[in-house]
């Protein structure tokens, strides 16, 4: 049993036209037992930057707390929000600091840059960045997610269509994975607003 499969998780982020969407499942389990069905995996760093953390839930929470701490200090010192690329470099550096005793997390970072160009990336638990122009996935359902996204994704989708696509990709993938599911949580972020929606899927 891999430590990454202890709690179960599914995360996906997609790029649309001047917007991005990030979605996660809601299950928190302890191996085969489901503990919670409203677990938060996606966290806001600032209005235009979100990070999702899959993998071991305790590490996801601790890592998020460290990232929020670093970003708040950055905001106070530099009097500006972090750009998504800068944040990704920071996450990568923090993860590599623990090279020989890592956080068992795979982050998915999604944000809008200064010019409102969407940015997404993922990395492994040691901080190896993987930039993508279309979508990134992470978690126990990642293999299904790759397949679903690859077939459902089209570039330059408007927010509404992006929401539909990411939701379908998420739900169909978690249905094939016993460790993730119990609904979904989707955020669609445009330069002017953020839409947060909860999905009802197979509750098992």
């Amino acid at each position: 049993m891999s430590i990454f499969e202890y709690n179960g998780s599914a995360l996906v982020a997609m790029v649309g036209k001047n917007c991005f969407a990030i979605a996660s499942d809601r299950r928190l389990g302890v191996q085969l037992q489901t503990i919670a069905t409203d677990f938060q995996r996606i966290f806001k760093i600032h209005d235009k930057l979100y990070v999702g953390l899959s993998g071991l839930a305790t590490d996801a929470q601790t890592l998020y707390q460290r990232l929020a701490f670093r970003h708040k200090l950055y905001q106070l010192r530099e009097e500006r929000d972090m750009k998504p690329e800068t944040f990704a470099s920071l996450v990568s550096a923090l993860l590599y600091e623990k090279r020989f005793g890592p956080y068992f997390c795979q982050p998915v970072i999604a944000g809008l840059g200064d010019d409102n160009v969407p940015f997404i990336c993922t990395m492994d638990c040691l901080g190896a960045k993987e930039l993508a122009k279309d979508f990134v996935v992470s978690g126990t359902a990642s293999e299904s997610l790759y397949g679903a996204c690859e077939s459902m994704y089209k570039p330059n989708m408007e927010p509404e269509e992006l929401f539909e696509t990411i939701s379908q990709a998420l739900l169909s993938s978690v249905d094939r994975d016993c460790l993730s599911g119990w609904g979904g949580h989707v955020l669609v972020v445009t330069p002017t607003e953020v839409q947060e929606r909860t999905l009802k899927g197979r509750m098992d």
Partner: protein
Amino acid sequence: MGDSQYSFSLTTFSPSGKLVQIEHALTAVGSGQTSLGIKAANGVVIATEKKLPSILVDETSVQKIQLMTTNIGVVYSGMGPDSRVLVRKSRKQAQQYYRLYKEPIPVTQLVRETAAVMQEFTQSGGVRPFGVSLLVAGYDDNGPQLYQVDPSGSYFAWKASAMGKNVSNAKTFLEKRYTDDMELDDAVHTAILTLKEGFEGQISSKNIEIGIIGADRKFRVLTPAEIDDYLAEVE
């Protein structure tokens, strides 16, 4: 760290509320060679006298104006060796910032960290304050910027400033000559004229140093040939 008798800070408060060592450090700065900086609309120029102790010194080997990063340069007034230590530390801090964020350090952040180092040396045991004031010139996303950092660790943003021997005359001259919409070339001319004001002897490309940074964000020290061209335009 040595005898307990010597492990107190040299900068202890005087009854009048001053830190006498810092005052003395500022005096050391005030008797150093004049240096100045001018912020133009599209860049920054910093300049200094380069009076060498003897004509036998190879002036091409001496460089007072140095880079902290590719887009931030610095000049000092006061003790040269002290400025070298600060430049070394600042360069390291700038690179650490880049390693963490993969973004070049903003000028304000580097100035703040340099100032923090200088302040540390006014509140630690067994050390003395730095005997230099720095003029930091940089160009980043917030445009051209010029900062002065003092031995106490305080820093100020300036449109134009001078330090060292001829500071009051130079500042008066700059106050009269400075305009907000100055271009970089005009600023270089004004810098040369200001240096000329208090210059002992004949000004030439061998006894002054000028550094500029423009919208290309690359700080560079002018060659003697380029300084000669500017001097010819000024004459």
